[in-house]
């Protein structure tokens, strides 16, 4: 469990994170989404007890991150997969980390096997590909079998098999009751792994929701319809809550009404429907829309309302 309350971090005059409040619950994979530079890594450093908040608080499993006496049991993190001594072997990198907490060598071997680095464990970590470095970073995060796992962009640099592997791994960790918090700047990546979602932009909270709700709310599906009498159909469909947008090819994009309803309206009026399809806005579009809103709002004269979209659960 990660609880973040009114968290703010300033570096000099730059505000990296501003008044963030959210909770990451155990048992599910929670995605942490935002464009590059949104403050995800800063937030994660504060969760790991590395950076000191300017104001506000972070607790991990009920205590401030630096207050744990057995930190590797509570919290495993990966911030930067390249953060290894280049000439130290992967095995010794993990061993040194394990020894701080009295974790046995057998556990180091277990973790190496679990991330698939057995064959290269004796090699210099500096020679690793990004994908291998990611696996090493994940191994380090899992050494102490922590209750909370925090990974910054773990999918970066992984091949297709690696991505599939990490999805299975993260879901498995969540299924075992762990808190799993994973950042990404790509919505498509997160939507296939996470069920909960925290979205930030420019250091501010934009959304705290489930992946499904986020998609539905951020970009409601539009129905594309073409019929024998577009003009008449448009007149029949026009009502509060329904938006009609004519497309270039003569079709009509209808949002706020389901395809079945549109079909029924057309049938009742004797209009022949030539084409009727629900078009789900892409997740990436929804994400870009949202974060761009936040950017525009900040560029404007700082309204008191804050971000354009707020979905508190």
């Amino acid at each position: 469990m990660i609880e973040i309350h009114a968290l703010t971090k300033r570096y000099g005059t730059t505000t990296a994170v501003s008044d963030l409040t959210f909770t990451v619950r155990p048992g599910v994979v929670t995605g942490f989404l935002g464009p590059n530079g949104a403050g995800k890594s800063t937030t994660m450093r504060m969760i790991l007890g590395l950076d000191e908040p300017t104001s506000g608080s972070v607790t991990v499993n009920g205590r401030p991150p630096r207050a744990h006496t057995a930190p590797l049991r509570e919290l495993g993190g990966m911030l930067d997969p390249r953060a290894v001594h280049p000439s130290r072997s992967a095995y010794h990198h993990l061993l040194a980390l394990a020894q701080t907490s009295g974790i046995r060598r057998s556990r180091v071997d277990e973790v190496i096997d679990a991330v698939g680095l057995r064959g290269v464990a004796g090699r210099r970590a500096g020679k690793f590909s990004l994908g291998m470095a990611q696996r090493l970073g994940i191994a380090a995060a899992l050494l102490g079998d922590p209750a909370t796992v925090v990974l910054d962009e773990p999918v970066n640099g992984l091949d297709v098999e690696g991505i599939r592997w990490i999805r299975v791994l993260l879901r498995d960790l969540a299924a075992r009751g762990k808190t799993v918090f994973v950042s990404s700047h790509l919505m498509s990546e997160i939507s296939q792994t996470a069920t909960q979602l925290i979205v930030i932009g420019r250091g501010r909270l934009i959304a705290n929701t489930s992946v499904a709700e986020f998609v539905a709310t951020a970009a409601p599906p539009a129905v594309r319809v073409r019929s024998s009498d577009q003009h008449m159909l448009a007149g029949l469909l026009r009502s509060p809550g329904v938006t009609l947008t004519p497309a270039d090819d003569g079709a009509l994009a209808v949002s706020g009404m389901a395809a079945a309803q549109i079909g029924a309206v057309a049938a009742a009026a004797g209009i022949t429907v030539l084409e009727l399809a629900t078009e789900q806005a892409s997740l990436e579009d929804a994400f870009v829309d949202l974060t761009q809103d936040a950017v525009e709002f900040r560029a404007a004269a700082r309204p008191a309302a804050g971000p354009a979209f707020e979905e508190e659960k």
Partner: protein
Amino acid sequence: MTSTTPSPAPVAALAAYPRPQKVTQARVLRSEWTKLRTQPSTFWTLLSAVVLITGFGILYSLVRETRPPHGAAAIASFDPAAVSLSGVQLAQIAVGVLGVLLITSEYATGLIRTTLAAVPRRLPVLWGKAALLATATLAMSLPAALAAFLGGQSILARQHLSVPLSQPGVVRAVVGSALYLVVAALLGLGLGAVLRSTAGGIAALFGLLFGVQLAAGFLPGSLGQEVGKYVPTTAGQAVTLVRPDPASSLPPWAGFGVFCLYAAVLLGLAALRMRRGDA
């Protein structure tokens, strides 16, 4: 489904590990020892220090053998132990750089974040590094200093210029040379931890070891001499001299104490910087 597709990625679930895992200073010490011995720069810097201590000591002894002191005053002030231990002057750079690198390499790579996330109290990391650096430096420099002394004296003996270990102050000078190097290494560690940059740390090390001494030399007359006694290198090297000149240096152990104080202040600053604020 996934089991039928051949996959290079492992899918074996990681077993639970329910042991208590308290962080203690002793455990951090073990961890730091693993890091120290698996970092190639440790080996190379310590080896170069050994070569500098023994090699330069013997070389300078050979030089002095061919150009022995002439005249009563020169013979009276001739310190054969110091001649054979002169390599310490160069070796202090090697061990100081080792001290700097021991911590700045973690900042340069970002490894320090992994380290400090695992040891959230943070200071055990600094103390662990300091203890191991001191031990490793002593284990290297004591035999090296003894070898340099014995080798050098056997050369100087051919001109009847040598001193035996049994002469008062000689054992202290040999052991003191090793201790001097230990503290020089700790100065490097302190500077590295305060500055968090390899280049900055090494530059500051040169400044502290040589720059301050040079600057003190510019001070006029007796003031320069008095201040000069408290300069890190001069103060520290009092313990490496069999008969330090009271006019230009502090008593051996007092001088060494001052040198230790510099290292203590730097490590204290490093601890303050490390404990608070951002990693």
